[in-house]
């Protein structure tokens, strides 16, 4: 795709984030969508392209009252929205539609109107993983961690620092769920969930949603908000079974999606002012820094422990507080995208001064999928 041909012109999260017992999952989609349309100054009839995950496009389009000419129901886990942005940019460039709405919402905690996730006994996961006691992401996502630590010499303290630093960012965000400062000792003494990970190294479970509106760059200047351009994109999938990853010392999906986006954007790592790496669990920022090529994997733990990603550090990372401290409704990718857009608009609560390029990297499933979007506020 060509650079800077498509822009984000509307972006918003749900009115409330956190615990929302008075709204179904479908209504959370609508709440986010209506907020994003207000942000962009658009009417329902202006939307001709639509994408969402988990819920079907027909479900949300009918509820909202949208008649699209292009839809995308790609549902590959929490990075689905990165893939939607990539697909929407291609669709707009190809002339299939003009204005795309992407929504995410999840009633993560009360699960109102949310179908339960289940694994069929005759699926490959049901036959070759479920019988061995995996039960939800905390029992699966950290399975590669011990191998990663041994291979690269990463320590428990370095992995605890991921949570400590992100809490520092969260403290600057009024909408963050967890804002109290924590120490490495707090992390290493929190309740054991799945060794080697403890409670504070696992993401929150919250409710909320978000929506984005994209259109062509030449139309973007007529919208009320500062346009945020799509500079580069990448995507890939690997396997729905964490046990079948090619290696536990890297994510193949990350290594495909990330470099694709950098190549398309035509930038180097030193050009990056702001970085989001989807952190469902504390090891993901390390995998991301390594697989996106910011540094060798062995340096990722020491880099974070040295404070380079904290407020005032040279590579601001997960500036909303991330899935560990900001919010995580089950599919966090939308919130990472929202924070990148806020940073590029210059309106983030923990704004990185003069940030011009933001890299937003997502994961789906347990390293099953990946999507990377690189934004810029300069055309």
């Amino acid at each position, binding site marked *: 795709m060509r650079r800077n041909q498509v822009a984000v012109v509307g972006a918003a999260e749900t009115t409330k984030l956190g615990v929302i017992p008075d709204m179904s999952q479908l209504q959370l989609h609508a709440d986010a969508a209506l907020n994003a349309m207000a942000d962009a100054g658009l009417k329902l009839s202006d939307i001709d392209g639509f994408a969402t995950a988990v819920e079907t496009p027909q479900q949300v389009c009918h509820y909202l009252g949208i008649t699209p000419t292009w839809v995308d129901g790609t549902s590959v886990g929490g990075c689905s929205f990165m893939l939607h942005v990539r697909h929407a940019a291609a669709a707009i460039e190809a002339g299939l539609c003009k204005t795309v709405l992407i929504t995410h919402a999840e009633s993560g905690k009360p699960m109102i109107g949310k179908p339960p996730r289940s694994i069929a006994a005759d699926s490959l996961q*049901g036959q070759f993983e479920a019988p*061995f*006691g995996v*039960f939800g992401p905390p*029992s699966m996502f950290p399975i590669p961690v011990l191998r990663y630590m041994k291979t690269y010499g990463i320590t428990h303290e370095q992995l605890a620092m991921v949570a400590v630093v992100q809490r520092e960012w969260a403290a600057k965000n009024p909408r963050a769920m967890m804002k109290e400062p924590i120490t490495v000792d707090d992390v290493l003494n929190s309740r054991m969930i799945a060794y080697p990970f403890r409670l504070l190294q696992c993401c929150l479970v919250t409710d909320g949603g978000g929506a984005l509106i994209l259109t062509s760059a030449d139309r973007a200047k007529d919208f009320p908000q500062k346009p945020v351009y799509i500079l580069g994109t990448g995507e890939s999938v690997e396997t729905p*079974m964490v046990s079948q990853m090619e290696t536990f010392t890297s994510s193949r999906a990350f290594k495909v999606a990330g470099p694709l986006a950098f190549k398309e954007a035509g930038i180097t790592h030193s050009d990056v002012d702001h970085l989001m790496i989807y952190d469902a669990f504390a090891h993901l920022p390390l995998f991301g820094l390594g697989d996106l090529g910011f540094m060798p994997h062995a340096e990722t733990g020491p880099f974070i422990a040295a404070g380079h990603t904290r407020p005032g550090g040279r590579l601001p990372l997960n500036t909303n507080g991330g899935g560990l401290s900001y919010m995580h409704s089950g599919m966090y990718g939308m919130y990472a995208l929202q924070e990148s857009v806020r940073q590029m608009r210059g309106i983030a609560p923990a704004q990185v001064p003069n940030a011009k390029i933001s890299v937003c990297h997502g994961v789906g499933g347990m390293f099953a999928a990946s999507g990377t979007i690189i934004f810029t506020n300069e055309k």
Partner: protein
Amino acid sequence: MAEAARARPKPTPETQHFWDGTQAGELRLQRCDSCAHVYFPPRPFCPSCASRKVSVFKASGKGTLYSYVINHRPAAPGFTPPYAIAVVALDEGPRMMSNITGCPQTPEALELDMKLEVTFEKLDDQITLPLFRPAKG
């Protein structure tokens, strides 16, 4: 064991030979007749070269501990926490998820790269699971 039952695998036409194997006390893998690639989970073609000429063979049952978590909460039905969920690197190449029996479920007892051997646990008349234990000697 807790009272609720462990998730029970349901074989498909493509995986039946694997589950027949565990019932017979064999860990069965597949090898491509064209490129010699050994792979898992089962499928009737080679995921490396796409050849449909593949053979089932009895694996050695030997491997090493590639990685694991010790799950505390939430525990899966049929499991009493803490219990290790392991990924075993088989000597033939593929990796598979399993549990480690015959040793404490602790970081001290579960050393990465320790040698393991397969053991079989009968779930019911149709299904026997391949588990692993520290190799003897």
